[in-house]
Every structure is written in C-alpha cells, then in structure tokens.
C-alpha cells in the first residue's frame, strides 16, 4: 500500500553524495530507475480497543522509483500491492482481509500508490505524497521515507505512514479495531 520508498531513495542519494555542495554530483551517483525488490518488507498494524492489535505483512508487490537528476522533488514512486498475499498469524484473519469485508481481492486485486509530490525533510529523509487506490477508491496518502543504506546499485529505505481505512470503504470492525492502519516498510531497490 505504501510507495514512499522512492522518495526516500532520492533523498538518501542526495545525502550520501554530498548534500550541501555537490548536490548535482551526489544525485548523479544515485540517479536512475530502481526496481523494488521482493526482499522488501511491507508490514502493517491495526491497533485494537483494550490494547494489542493485528499485525501482518504483504508478500506480493511490485514497484519502481526514479531518482531524477533534477533532484528529489522531481523523483517519482509507483507501487503496486497485491492484498491477496496478506500474511497474519491466523488463516481466518487473512481470509477475512481478502474478503468483500475488507480488500475484496476478487474485485480489486491491486492496491496502487503513485507519488505526486516528494519533499525532502532532512539530509536522509523525505515526505512522499501521492494518490492511493484501493477497492476502486482513490484518496491522497502520505508516507515518510528515510534512507537506511546505499551501496552500488542498491538502496534501502524505511517507509512509514498511517492510512485511514474508512475512506476506502474498509471500516469494518471499527471501533473495535482502529481506523488507522500503521505501515512500517523496508523497501529495497535495485537499479
């Protein structure tokens, strides 16, 4: 569901390269089109009343981000998640999440995020804003990305963000389960 990684990537590149003086050169080192690797981790958590909550991961996704030579703000991220791949400690929970009650994977097999604006927030972090489409509904969403590592053709970002599920018609279970879905992702990219 999150596609903030690309932004973070761009940010990280800038940082690594020499943020202050040689921005163009630094960026040029990391500039390129990155594919989000399958060893990335898409984790989520929904808190519940009385403490605790549901947490899980999605194992099937794809995406890419382009770090532009013009800078982070010109970079782009696109991310596609297949909610059918949801993984939680309980099989019934997974089937419920796949069902018409939540993701309705039979009708809407993909959740898509496209960045519309990336803003650098520090030497190694960026705010990624974009449009998130789930269950056929498109709403704005934002994620924070921070550079974890970079080397060779690879780069990794931690991407976090909170998405309210009710606007996407996924409000089942509230207020027992909170409206806010907390995403915590590690996106590994390779160009």
């Amino acid at each position, binding site marked *: 569901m999150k596609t903030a990684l690309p932004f973070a990537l761009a940010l990280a590149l800038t940082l690594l390269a020499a943020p202050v003086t040689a921005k163009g050169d630094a960026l040029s080192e990391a500039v390129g089109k990155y594919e989000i690797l399958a060893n990335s981790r898409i984790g989520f958590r929904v808190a519940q009343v*009385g403490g605790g909550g549901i947490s899980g991961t999605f194992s099937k996704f794809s995406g890419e981000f382009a770090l532009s030579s013009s800078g982070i703000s010109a970079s782009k991220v696109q991310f596609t998640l297949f909610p059918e791949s949801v993984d939680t400690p309980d099989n*019934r929970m997974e089937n419920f999440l796949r069902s*018409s009650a939540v993701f309705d994977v039979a009708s809407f097999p993909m959740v898509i995020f496209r960045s519309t604006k990336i803003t650098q927030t520090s030497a190694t972090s960026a705010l990624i804003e974009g449009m998130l489409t789930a269950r056929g509904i498109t709403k704005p969403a934002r994620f924070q990305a921070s550079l974890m590592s970079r080397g060779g053709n690879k780069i990794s970002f931690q991407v976090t963000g909170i998405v309210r599920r009710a606007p996407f018609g996924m409000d089942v279970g509230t207020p*027992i389960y909170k409206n806010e879905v907390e995403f915590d992702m590690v996106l590994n990219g390779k160009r």
Partner: protein
Amino acid sequence: MIRNSDVAYGSVAIFFHWSIAALFIGQIGLGWFMLEDTDPARQFWLFQWHKSFGFLILALAALRLIWTLANRRPVEPDSLTAFEKIGARAAHWLLYAALFVVPLTGWAIASASPLQIPSFAFNLMVIPHLPMNVSQAAERFWADVHAVLAYGAAIVAGLHILAALRHHFWLRDGILLRITRPSASQGTRK
C-alpha cells in the same frame, strides 16, 4: 408489588423473566443466523452483537440471582400433581443454570480463540478475555459446548412455554398470570 409474595411474583422478578426471555430467544435466532451468514462484514457485526447481548444476559442473570435469593419463592398451586411439580422445578433450574453457563461458554469461545477479537460490549465496555488456553482446538471445543448447551436450553425453554400454554388455555388455572401480573399476589404475603 415489587417483591415476590408466597403466591405470586413481584414486578422485579417479572421484569427479569421477560427481559431475559426476549434476549434469550433473540440470541438463539441470532446465533443460528450469524453462523449461516455469507456476508463477511455483516457476519463480523452479528458476532459482536451476539457477544454484547450475551454479556447483557449474564449481567441480568447475576442480578436476577441476587434478587431471587433475597426474595421468597412463590409456592406452587395445590392443583399441580407431584409429577408436574417435579417437571416444572427441573425446567426452572435448568433454565436458570443455562442463563449462566451458556453466556460463560460463549465468553470462553472469544477468550480461547486465536483471533483474540476484543469483546467490546455494545461498543461501550471492553470485557477482558477469561484467562484460558488459547488455541483453535480450545475454541472449537467451547464452541461445541456452547452450541449444545444453548440449543439444549432452547428445548427446555420450549417445553416450559408449552407447559405454560397448557395451563393457560387447556387447564385454565391462571398460573401463567402469575408471571404477567404483579398484583395477583396482593395481600397474600405472610
């Protein structure tokens, strides 16, 4: 009158009887329907309503027990045969026990389930899980016990209703009115 007399039930006992009766009948229907429902979102909510009403029954049953212990029990009319008295007492005790064990076993299902779905009664109050072993096997076990006890109680309740209708429409002895009219006991309390 509010309290029971030797020959009739007071208004509080009558309130407990009919409110719990209505909730119990509703829960039997809801419990059956929610398991058959094929809409997962609606099914989730039906389960939560069933849990909420179950906790309400348990709370009412506890209050009813206190009230019953603090009140005299109206005597059975002399017109009843020994067999009828035994049958009526057995049904009453079984139904009374069911008001506790059926909700408690339902609570056990929610507590034992690996889903660990919070019990948020009427979206007002979090009811903690019972301290017990959490596993799918334990959940299944308690679900089976709950269903057997609930439908067993429904059968006893059905016999109880048939007996009441027999008294009212066939024997015409007015026994059913004891649980509908608190005033029937007026002036008879010793």
